[in-house]
């Protein structure tokens, strides 16, 4: 047994799953530590839900194995595995009250009535739904239903909590509130949790570790800030947050030619004359105020988008690229400097903030 698997709570080894000719997940191996909150993040159709369902036993993998707490559970039916699950649709039983829904799994495990009541009350308190115990799910709001589903999944104290897009059916505001509540709950209980989502903001705010998936493969994993700052491909860089891409050619070490302008960037792994893309986050672009001398671009404002706390400005620079260059600045700064469409300004970004990707 490898060193790695001794510390890990859940281990997925070389897992593949095909539906007919379609390979939903391809040879995935991951390892999750006890108490960790991880996210499978990716666009729809990337295989993240299939991976989750394989871990739950709701789908059967075509190859590979799953090990939970050093037990090989690959061939176990869902009923022999230790997990709780919350679905996007919540799947609350419509004919049972909130109380009975949460008690549903306990009753089967031959709990005494009084213990069931105690446990359900505890859970209702945990998700702040004590007053709703005797309502039906159709009488609850989306956010409340979501919390009932969570309480039901946690009722039997499973070792693993699986969340399948748990927030995507909710209003934006409720979603932000529940993100924090779920995260706090997870920390409090210390239950190992896997969440599937296509919302990068959700993954960033909730997860300890993110697995970014695309076309059935994990293309990067790491902490939210790692993934944001060290995205290893243009796909991830643009999927997680926004990114400007400028076509360029390396001319010498630390220098690239973008159309008519020379840009200083980190070129370590590239050789001269290689065609590349230079990437820069919109918030890393600033107005040139102190006469910095590297990476200056003159550009004209094409469009200003008001996004509340900040503003997104679309520049056009004939000398650099045909695509617009996007810059985010805080609204309070924008108010002070009074920007208008057609203004020509000098923009600056540091060599440190650039990333270079192969085309």
């Amino acid at each position, binding site marked *: 047994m490898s060193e790695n698997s001794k510390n890990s709570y859940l281990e997925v080894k*070389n897992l*593949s799953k095909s539906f007919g000719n379609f390979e939903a997940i391809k*040879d995935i191996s991951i390892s999750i530590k006890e108490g960790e909150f991880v996210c499978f993040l990716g666009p729809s159709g990337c295989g993240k839900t299939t991976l989750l369902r394989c871990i*739950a*036993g*709701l789908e*059967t*993998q*075509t*190859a*590979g194995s799953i090990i939970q707490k050093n037990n090989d559970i*690959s*061939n*176990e*039916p*869902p*009923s*022999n*595995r230790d*997990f*709780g*699950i919350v*679905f996007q*649709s*919540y*799947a609350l*039983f*419509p*004919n*049972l009250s909130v109380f009975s829904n949460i008690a*549903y*799994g306990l009753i*089967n*495990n031959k709990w005494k009535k009084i213990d069931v009541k105690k446990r359900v009350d505890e859970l209702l308190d945990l998700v702040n739904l004590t007053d709703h115990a005797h*309502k*039906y*799910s*159709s*009488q*609850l*709001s*989306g956010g409340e239903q979501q919390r009932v589903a969570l309480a*039901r*999944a946690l*009722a*039997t104290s*499973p070792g693993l909590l*699986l969340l399948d897009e748990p927030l995507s059916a909710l209003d934006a505001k409720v979603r932000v509130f529940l993100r924090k509540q779920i995260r706090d709950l997870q920390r409090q209980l210390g239950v190992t949790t896997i969440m599937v989502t296509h919302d990068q903001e959700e993954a960033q705010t909730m997860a300890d570790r993110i697995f970014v998936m695309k076309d059935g493969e994990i293309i990067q994993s790491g902490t939210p800030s790692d993934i944001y700052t060290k995205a290893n491909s243009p796909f991830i860089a643009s999927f997680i947050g926004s990114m400007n891409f400028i076509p360029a050619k390396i001319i010498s070490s630390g220098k690239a030619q973008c159309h008519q302008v020379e840009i200083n960037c980190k070129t370590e792994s590239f050789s001269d004359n290689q065609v590349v893309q230079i990437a820069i986050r919109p918030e890393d672009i600033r107005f040139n105020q102190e006469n910095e001398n590297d990476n200056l671009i003159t550009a004209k404002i094409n469009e200003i988008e008001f996004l509340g706390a900040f503003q997104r400005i679309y520049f056009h620079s004939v000398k650099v690229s045909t695509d617009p260059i996007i810059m985010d600045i805080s609204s309070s700064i924008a108010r002070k400097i009074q920007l208008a469409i057609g203004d020509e300004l000098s923009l600056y970004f540091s060599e440190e903030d650039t990333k270079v990707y192969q085309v």
Partner: protein
Amino acid sequence: MNFLKFADIKRGKDSSDRVGQLLLASYIILFFVFLVLPLGSLIFKSLQNKDGDFVGLVNYYLYLQEPALFQSLYNSLFVAITSTIIVVVIAFLFSYALTRTCMPFKGFFKLIALVPLLSPSILAAIALVYWFGNQGVLKEMLLGHSIYGPIGIIMASVYWTFPHALIILITSLSLSDSRLYEAAEVLKTSKLRAFFTITIPGARYGIISTAFVIFTQVFTDFGVPKVIGGNYNVLATDIYKEVVGMQNFQMGAVISMVLLIPAMVAFFIDRYSRKKQISLLTSRSVVFKPKKNFKVDMIMLSFCSVLALIIILMIGMAQYGAIVKFWPYNLNLTIKHYNFQVAGLGWNSFYNSVRLAFFAALFGTIIIFVGSYLIEKLRINERSRGLVQFFALMPMAVPGLVLGLAYIFFFNAKDNPLNFIYATMIILVVNTIVHFYTVSHLTAITALKQMDKEFESVSLSLKIPTYKMFWRVTLPVCLPPIFDISIYLFVNAMTTVSGVIFLYSYDTTLAAVSAIHLDEQGDVAGAAAMAMLIVYVSIAVRLLHTIITKKILRKTQAWRYNIIDTN
């Protein structure tokens, strides 16, 4: 190494999975024994001569050589197509009035329009005899034509198939997006153009589906042409004559095949168009609400009033005929016709019918619901589930008369171990369940599809065996459709003729069959009385069903009535 592992990975099964597999296997076996093999023996019989030797298509050749039999095919097609056209037109107008106008008394009209569902199809034929028969009240209105023949068959067929058409058309006309009409209005489209460019295309699959359903019903119906067809022969009466009259089973089998093929074609076209219908309405559509239009509303009101009056007059006349002393000479009222003077065709057949209906409803509902649950919710054995689904749809394409004949050939065979069920109540119950399987099955499937598909997954994650979840959640939630299935089976078992005409024995005569035989022996009043008995029971059971449903539903469906708007 991965490819090596590929083969030996199999999902571990829990106990629910194993029970499910076992059940699924038994459904396949049951369908084989009670549907596939009997139909097989019917086909086989059509390829044999009287001595049981295989003769290939000789019987079919003989059939084509017989002008009288061939004429019946033409007759069957003629009455079926004519009735279909009439029914589709009037049922479309009627359902349009119910769904798209602000005509008053909609509830009343809908109720009256569904009345023919409660009676056997022969009731219409009997009523027509009283109205237009040799001693009918309105005989002169036919201008010298006889009601005994195509006119009578078509009129009676239109009467009894009308509610079937109405139900389909109401559904398809209700599925309409009011935004389409608003868009048309904004673009200054005339009402007439909107009708032809939005309403008709929107309902076209419903219309196609209706046409094929009605065609099949009339084409394969036995009771109506038997009672009012006179010398006008159709395929269904030919089969009966060949089998019961001349004991020529081979020719009966051949004609059955001729009956079966158009019914099958119609079935598949119907299935296809129903699938198309579903995709027309999206969750974003806004349901159409009719606006007041005095002229249209009044025209529709008079149209529906006339139809409602006709329905009332038909069933009213059947009732009147049943209690008149001696039509048309002595019009004093009496209940003596309910004493049924003909031996073997009296109250005992009525009780037999009630028993049959009760058993068919009880066992049929359980079998059909569990079967559809297996198909819809089992996670394994995809292929077997597909097979059961296919079998479950098949009975709809098989006319009752054909199924009944197939049962004779299969179960009456001396070497069949199930021979003992022949001529018993069991074979009638089984035949009735199979005959009416498809519609009930589809009702159950629709109900199950509306349930969250993750319920079973949640249960598994909570270590709840599937059967417990079935008992605590699926069953309670599905109670309304389960009640609908049971009442459907009950009423159809009471009224059916074609499915059981070959299968009853002296001890198991049935009410609707008795009515036919009473009529055959000249006791038209007795036939009317027997047909009305079926109507009374159907009404009583409907009422009982409504009361019980309300009571039980108040208990189990409390959640339905507590819905608040969560947005």
